[in-house]
């Protein structure tokens, strides 16, 4: 497991105040819907700010956001490619 995914999991749990353990989150975990983390659009804004602060990676347009914010793995991939 890469360093960034662990940091990303911590970021998700602390910034979004998720009531799950880091072990329960995998790269395949979806961000939206009852099967996933159940995030909403306001959470996405919180994540955009958190990712910029923690990893220095900026997401500033809707098309990129739609691509990046699907699963935990897709966020991690984008961070790894752009940090």
């Amino acid at each position, binding site marked *: 497991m890469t360093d960034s995914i662990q940091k990303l999991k911590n970021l998700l749990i602390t910034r979004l105040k998720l009531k799950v353990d880091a072990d329960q989150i995998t790269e395949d975990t979806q961000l939206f819907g009852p099967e996933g983390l159940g995030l909403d*659009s306001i959470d*996405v*804004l919180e994540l*955009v*700010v958190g990712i910029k602060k923690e990893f220095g990676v900026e*997401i*500033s*347009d*809707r098309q990129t*956001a739609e691509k990046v914010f699907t699963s935990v793995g897709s966020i991690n991939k984008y961070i790894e490619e752009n940090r």
Partner: protein
Amino acid sequence: MKRIVLVTGGSKGIGRAVVTAFAEAGDAVIVSCCRSLNEAEALRLELFPKNDAIFIEQANVADYAQIKRMINNVMEKHGRIDVLVNNAGITRDSFLMLMSERDWSDVIDINLTGVFNCSKAVSEYMISQRGGVIINIASLSGIIGLPGQTNYSAAKGGVIAFTKALAKELAHFGIRVNAVAPGVIETEIINSLNEKVKHNFLDNIPLKRFGRPDEVASVVRFLASQEASYITGETICVTGGLP
């Protein structure tokens, strides 16, 4: 005498209903569109049995040179413009933090600068005529502000303020300027939403249904008529009770 009515963005949605309402009342209607020429032509053919005075002009409202050319064409062909309905508009929704500069400027250019361009181009003729009516299609979004629509809310709020200011400038010449602010109207955009989102919308609307394009069009026609002769600088909400 037939009135000469110009409707921008007249081939689809609310614009289409506005064109239909004026055409059915016997006015000559110029449908201005940018990319939807096929839809405009289909509308012209549909209305033809009732009214053969429907004309199509292609121009991008965001481009003053194109609008000036279009208005000059209309004046050459018809000799006057009695009613301008500034309806052309687009949405490019996203939260501000995820909004590209392009999404911001496209919405401002078409929804707000487009109103400036068309109003400026017709006003010199309306002043010479000593009469005319300008009706701007605003939005509830421009009054209450909607999340994900900072660009659209800013543009439509701008249109409402523009309406008030221009009404004061042109009142002296017998020209009235008003706006209509529709709420959630059944158009392609609304029909494409999923049932859950539609339900959430409906829950918040006092009349518990979406508006129909013809319900907006009838208010536009009223504002363009002599029955509204003492109304100017006003914005009329057609929102089913919102906000």
